[in-house]
């Protein structure tokens, strides 16, 4: 389901031959961090920064960018910039909850399957296989749509649909840890299973988990905005990037910024998260740590 999170690493940060940090990369990652922080700030304080997101001005109607409306207005005369700023909230809250929920649910199942093995592994693996065989987004569209739509419904459905990829990730990493001599040595010492999982398996999975949080967030953001775009997430008229894009799609000949600005926000936020995630994955890997 979480297709992007499954894609292999791309060796962005460290040169794979020499292991040295790539020149010019620091700046890019710095900018990504700044952007992530900005979006997070707007998610909390956006409505104070831009109070005018819902104020309609039918007299003005649609307009191209101007001094008073830097990104112009939409067909109801609403200020596009304000709406983009306020839209940060639904763009951050839902995906954050999805990442956290799917991570906890999927991670716990993965750890259980990987460390315990046996029948629990079998059952969990079947579940994951089944979910991977389904086109997750389409299932989300159908289920959310048939159940009547809504933001939190979409969040709940996406938690369920994205958790298998976390399960698979954690399970594979745990399975890889399990036969390592330091884990076996801990077993021979007679340490309790819970302590081995917490002290010996988990710390070595941490880099993977941290990186996958960022990649998972980017993925959840795309999924949520897609549902909103299709009219299945937030209600009509809400200042939400996906919804705005859908509603302004037809205005592209009149005020392109109304559709392009929320689209750009989606891409830049997702790209920042992806880059930061890739960067962390490499930095925290054994190879990165050796530097």
């Amino acid at each position, binding site marked *: 389901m979480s297709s992007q999170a499954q894609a292999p690493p791309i060796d*962005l940060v460290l040169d794979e031959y020499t292991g040295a940090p790539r020149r010019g990369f620091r700046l890019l990652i710095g900018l990504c961090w700044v952007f992530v922080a900005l979006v997070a700030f707007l998610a909390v304080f956006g409505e104070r920064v831009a109070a005018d997101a819902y104020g309609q001005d039918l007299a003005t109607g649609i307009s191209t960018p101007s001094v008073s409306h830097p990104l112009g207005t939409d067909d109801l005369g609403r200020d596009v910039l304000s709406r983009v700023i306020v839209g940060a909230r639904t763009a951050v809250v839902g995906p954050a909850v999805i990442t956290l929920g799917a991570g906890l649910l999927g991670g716990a199942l993965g750890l259980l399957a990987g460390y315990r093995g046996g029948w629990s592994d079998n059952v969990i693996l079947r579940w994951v296989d089944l979910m991977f065989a389904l086109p997750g987004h389409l299932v989300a569209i159908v289920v959310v749509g048939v159940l009547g739509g809504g933001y939190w419904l979409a969040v709940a459905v996406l938690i369920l649909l994205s958790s298998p990829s976390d399960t698979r990730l954690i399970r594979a990493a745990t399975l890889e840890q399990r036969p390592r001599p330091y884990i076996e040595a801990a077993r021979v010492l007679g340490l309790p299973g819970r302590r081995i999982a917490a002290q010996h398996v988990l710390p070595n999975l941490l880099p993977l988990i941290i990186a996958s949080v960022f990649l998972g967030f980017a993925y959840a953001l795309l999924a949520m905005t897609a549902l909103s775009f299709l009219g299945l997430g937030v209600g009509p008229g809400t200042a939400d990037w996906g919804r705005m894009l859908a509603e302004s799609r037809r205005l592209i000949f009149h005020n392109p910024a109304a559709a*392009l600005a929320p689209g750009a926000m989606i891409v830049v936020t997702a790209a920042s998260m992806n880059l930061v995630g890739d960067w962390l994955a490499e930095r925290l890997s054994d190879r990165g740590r050796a530097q």
Partner: protein
Amino acid sequence: MQRSQLLAFVGRRLAGLALLLCIISFGVFSLVHLVPGSAEQVLISGRRPPSPERVEAIRERYRLDESFWSQYTHWVRRAAVGDFGLSIRTGEPVARALRERAAPTLFLGVYAWILVVSVGIPLGVLAAVKKRTAIDRAAVAMSVAGVSAPAFVTGIFLLYIFAVVLGWFPAFGQGSGFAGRLQHLTLPALALALTGIAPVLRFTRTGMLETLEQDYIVFARARGLSRARVLFGYGLRNALIPVITAGGLLLGILLTGAVLVEVTFSIPGLGNLLIEAVNFHDIPVVQGVAMMTATLVIMVNLATDVLYMFIDPRIRFGQVAA
């Protein structure tokens, strides 16, 4: 013994896929009962109170008086021959709507798929071979953009640049005739392809880089094999294995992307049909689209398995799990 192992493998996969189809069909069938309201209400458009005869007809058609299991088997038997009943919204058979709407989606999908394979794999190979050059950097940047931009955003930007600013392509609709289609569907296919290229490029590039580091590549070079033989016969063939196993993943991306792109460009395909049906709670149509998609997913999975088996002898001999 080899043949029996091969048959066992194929048999196992087929059984798995059949089971998958069962589970999906069960889920799809259950949609009727998932929607708030009784099954009759769901299956009859709720705008005006239906006549008792109509209710009776619906109860008869969907066997609503019988057990859940019996309803299901009855529905499956009809679905198997493509009969999903009548659309609630239009009253016409679902099968007809599916047929009509399939053409543009199929055209779009195949067009995008060709773009993905013909751009993603060669570019991935090129990036790996020309590592640490501008080509590689550009390919990597493209893949980052590709995984970060959903098809509808890519679509809007392409629309703006090529239809609004440059005016090279029409903005909306599907066009008629092959040339018209090609012209109308180029931007949507491009938008769709860009999201698919990114993972394919990544898988190819990583697979190729890992393969080129292998001992057997060094050994092939040490025997003086030609560069082409080393790169393609030894390198690419091994590198393609992860790409092929990602085939199902690509299908998922393309399917979702098709829905988003069709909505973005107002193409009257299956994706738009699904969204209309979902918003209207037109369950028979949703079921029809879902089952059609499920069949496609299963066929692609099977094709992936067969291809995988064809490329990797270890699968044929049951050495590693598929």
